[in-house]
């Protein structure tokens, strides 16, 4: 018995929603990155599902790109947070509002 593609897509959607919620609500910077990774993985999953559905390899190729971009972005972002932590001893993003009016 094969798993219907729809389920994969629903899973991807659920993961994406959970990731978005995490991005928008969490205070901890690392957690936000975690959520972003979750979103990206959800996207990956949906690409693979579509690739299977439409019987094209393009989707899987895109996944490689997304993985590379995610890795790069995580690296840069974590480096930024380390720098911020060194200065402000916190990674609570609510505390980073120097650009207030």
């Amino acid at each position: 018995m094969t798993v219907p593609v729809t389920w994969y897509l629903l899973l991807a959607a659920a993961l994406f929603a959970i990731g978005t919620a995490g991005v928008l609500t969490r205070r901890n910077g690392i957690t936000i990155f975690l959520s972003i990774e979750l979103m990206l993985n959800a996207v990956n999953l949906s690409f693979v599902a579509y690739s299977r559905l439409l019987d094209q390899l393009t989707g899987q190729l895109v996944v490689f790109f997304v993985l590379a971009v995610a890795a790069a972005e995580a690296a840069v972002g974590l480096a930024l947070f380390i720098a911020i932590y060194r200065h402000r001893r916190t990674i609570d993003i609510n505390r980073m509002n120097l650009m207030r009016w």
Partner: protein
Amino acid sequence: MLDWLWLIPLIPLASAAVTGLLGPRAPKAAVTTVAVGGPGLALLLALGSLWEYAAIAPEPVTRTLYAWTAGTIEIPVAFLLDPLSAVMLFVVTFVGFWIHVYSVGYMGHEPAPYEHSYQRFFAYLNLFMAAMLLLILGNNFLVSFVGWEGVGLCSYLLIGFYFQNDDRVPPQAGRKAFIVNRIGDFAFLVGMLTLFSVFGTLEYLEIFDAHNAAHVAAFGEPYALGLTLASFVALCLFIGATGKSAQIPLYVWLPDAMAGPTPVSALIHAATMVTAGVYIVVRTNLIFQLAGGVSMLVACIGAATALFAATMALTQTDLKKVLAYSTVSQLGYMFLAAGVGAYTAAIFHLFTHAFFKALLFLGAGSVIHALGGEQDIRKMGGLRKYLPVTWVTFWIGSAALAGLPLFSGFFSKDEILAGAWAHGHWFLWGIGALTALLTAFYSFRLLGLTFHGGFRGTKQEREHLHESPAVMTVPLGILAVGALGAGYLGIPKVLSFGAELNRFHHWLEPVVAHLSGHEAVAHLAVRTEWLLMGATTFLALLGAAIPGIFFSHALPRFQPDYRGTALDDGFAYFLPKVYTVLYFKYWVDEVYDKLIVRPLRRLAEFFWKFVDGIVIEGAIRVGTFLTELAGDFGRFSTTGNVRDYLLYLFLGIIILFWWVFV
């Protein structure tokens, strides 16, 4: 000579420029030569032109200098010599020249701070001559208007000549004159514009051509404000004339204008500029004949002004102010004449008045000069011993003004009153006669207070009393000859035993338009005319006699230290209320100030402070306030919080997707 007509206004203009620009550094003699030579030369040219013209009169002569073009408009800068402008030309150049000569003596030694104003005076006076000549010689409204405003300008400059006085009276008076004049000019300009828009030209001969049936008909068409074209234009021009010739309601500047040097009062405010209004009315008599209502208005205002001003002259204590009110009154006579249709009489009176009034003013100047600047007649008296020539000439002038028989004023005034009666305006005749009585009264009052009785001034003044130098007395003499003899140019028929001796009338007759259907000539029965003449003569003699009694040698016998002020004192004692009203000139100036000047000023301040300052600035401030407010609200979105920015980002993406795909 006639081809050089255009030089006549230009020579004084040139001499004005030279005197004004080069005068400050030049020696006095040079200034005198140029400044008096200019008008002198103009006089010679004028006389020559008149001599030539006399042969071809009454054909008008036009000489064009150049054309003032503006696209489709072409107005020639041209000069016209016809019987009317010939008379004016003679008056202006002749009287003007002698006043210039007089001024050499009068303005020769001014006290500080005006020691160096000699050339300035002559520059202005020459400029005035140029403008006045432009006014009367112009063959169209535009050239005349240049002169019209030009004389207004020179009047302003000359009235305010003593501008450094601490009391600021001269510049105030000058300003008043200019502005009141401008009100008249506004009406004049509207009249000009109307004429141009209807006829396409401004030339006198073209517009006021009685033989041109089309024009005459056009004048009869209804135009504006319920008036015909003729009435409308006549009204506009008349209002302009009231400004320039100091009639009700725009006369208020003339008495104040006495703040200027006396030769100015003589030339500008007696002989020439103030007569410009009369000139214009007579020049345009065609429309006044066609506009009966306006003519009646002219006559009434003339008569009213004559009486009104004469009453004020009864109580004035400033030598020149009496003469100023007298001028206003005499100008009223001229307008009365013009209003009833006796145009030649108006100009005749203008002619004689120029002589005797200028004479009176110059005589006054002689007195003021002798007294070192005193102008209050209460402080004068008994001057005939010290200033005999001045006294004699002043006497002649006063007699002419009063209209005593054999003097020039008698003939001209009589012609006016006869004309009024002949046209059926008995009421106006009455006013004129009453005014004649008052005129005689105040002129002999003035004579008496100044020259008769005992001297009421200070001891120093008495020591300095001296007759004026020849340069001043010669013009007095010449003008006295005119004041005596000018009337004989217009001897009425009744006095000439049948001969046609009214040369003046015949000379000017062609200028009066003869419209078919308008009977301008009215004849009086001989007996009526004798009666009228007798009546006015009687009134004049009566009016002269009253002060005569007070200043004769009779009274001092009763009161040894009688100084000659009994007349005024008596008046003030027996009729105090009347005296006060007259003394304060009916408070007209104050009324004008309260009713017109102050409210206008308040309106202007309201506009500035409220409309500009609060309403408009307020609107702008509201604008800036709203912009700032929007900014204030807008800035709350920049929380500095990354999460909020992410939220905006997210929302934006959703909206974008929605918009693109849905």
